[in-house]
């Protein structure tokens, strides 16, 4: 047995080498397309519809609130999380990064502050102080921000960074009743909210240019599990479970439309 094995050992090695070579060639040509696996062609039936994603879960850890989590990638076409191994591909549309994975960004390969840097994506995000239903015009391409992690806390609350999709009520006194359970609550601004001092904070709508040039508008509804309205958001409500609604229209569109 041993002898026979030894005798034939030379040729299998050669064959193996040839096979490996062939595999390398094949993977080279595949990586030229920057897609390791064939990507299912998204059907056009994704367009012009109202989609809803409930409780998209991102791991969070209150004991280590500032612990950086890897950016979580999401496809608006498949409505699923996309593995981080696809970070540099155009298979995902929005990233959740930064503190509590609560800061949104688009997919853009030419911006060094984007997690997709080096990829082929040409996307970005922006945020409007306007109700989801009222956002019909698609903003010009120059208005989209190509960086990752740029839409999060709103200046109306604590630690705000410009216009954001949520208001962080640090003391529970901006929107809460001052009780401990209403402190440290993150209020998604998908709908307008009235503060205790009477200020109306207009709803926010996130607009996304996808890496392939399509456009989406997103209404961020909640970051709490199974809790979609402010009255049921408390400090200890399980988080981060993103609930949002969106509409996608194809590249070249000028309007967001829902068609029957």
């Amino acid at each position, binding site marked *: 047995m041993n002898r026979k094995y030894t005798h034939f050992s030379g040729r299998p090695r050669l064959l193996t080498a040839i096979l490996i070579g062939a595999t390398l060639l094949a993977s080279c040509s595949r990586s030229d397309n920057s897609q390791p696996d064939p990507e299912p062609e998204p059907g056009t039936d994704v367009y012009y519809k109202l989609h809803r994603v409930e409780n998209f879960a991102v791991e969070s850890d209150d004991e280590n609130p500032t612990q950086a989590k890897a950016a979580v990638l999401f496809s608006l076409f498949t409505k699923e999380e996309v593995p981080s191994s696809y970070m540099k591909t155009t298979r995902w549309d929005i990233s959740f990064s930064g503190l509590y994975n609560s800061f949104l960004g688009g997919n853009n390969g030419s911006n060094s502050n984007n997690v997709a840097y080096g990829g082929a994506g040409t996307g970005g995000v922006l945020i409007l102080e306007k109700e989801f239903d009222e956002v019909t015009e698609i903003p010009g391409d120059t208005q989209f921000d190509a960086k990752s992690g740029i839409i999060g806390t709103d200046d109306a609350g604590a*630690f705000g960074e*410009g216009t954001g999709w949520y208001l962080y009520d640090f003391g529970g006194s901006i929107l809460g009743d001052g009780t401990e359970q209403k402190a440290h609550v993150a209020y998604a601004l998908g709908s307008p909210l009235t503060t205790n001092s009477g200020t109306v904070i207009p709803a926010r709508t996130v607009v996304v240019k996808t890496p392939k040039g399509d456009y989406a508008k997103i209404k961020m509804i909640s970051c709490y599990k199974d809790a979609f309205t402010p009255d049921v958001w408390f400090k200890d409500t399980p988080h981060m479970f993103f609930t949002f609604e969106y509409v996608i229209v194809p590249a070249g569109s000028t309007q967001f439309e829902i068609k029957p």
Partner: protein
Amino acid sequence: MDLFRTNLNKLVLLAALAVSCGKDDPVRPSLEDGKSTVIYDLPGDTEASMSDGVNGKDERDFHTFLFRFRDKKQIWIRTKADSAQWLKTVDWDIAFTGPYNSEIYVNNADYLHNPGYGGEASGTAVVLLHQSYESVVEAPSDETFDQSELNKIGWASSEGSSGWFNYSLNTHIMQALPNRTYAIRLPDGNYAKLQLINAYKGNPPAVTDMYWPAPYYTFRYFVQRDGGKNLSTIIQ
């Protein structure tokens, strides 16, 4: 969502300075340059707390205070009367707001969340320069000020944001970010530069006690009083 409830009080905090000061370099460069105004340990709202169970502190929102560059006046906004007297005037330059008074606004009438909203301070703006304080010798162009979208100098959630401080996401160290100097167009039209240095008493290079007194602000600024853009603080 406990964002900052835990980490500011509970964790061991280290405030790293914009100025590098390793253990083998015990002498830190002085903040004084002969031209700038240096404010040491200006007490913020030290009675408020971000979490309960801290001795002698209430868990409530922090009171805002205003600061006027020309005479170093600190103005507290604790009551509605305080607000009515001060907020909409040009009698202050910057406001220390939010948790730990860590979020700084330049007096501005146009931005909704600015304490000076609807007041008299028109045309003000702030621009982040990714340069050391010393190396900023000239204010940016008025076009640059006009186009700035920076409304508040606060927490920097990411490398791309414009805030003055950050937490190390790996070590929970709170730190002033290096090479962040803020050029300001003031309510009176003069140009200034500002560096936020520390929120901890004594401007320590390293804080090792979670109850290290805070907020006590150390910062420095220079206002060019002749209306020009020369912001050099290097004495020739």
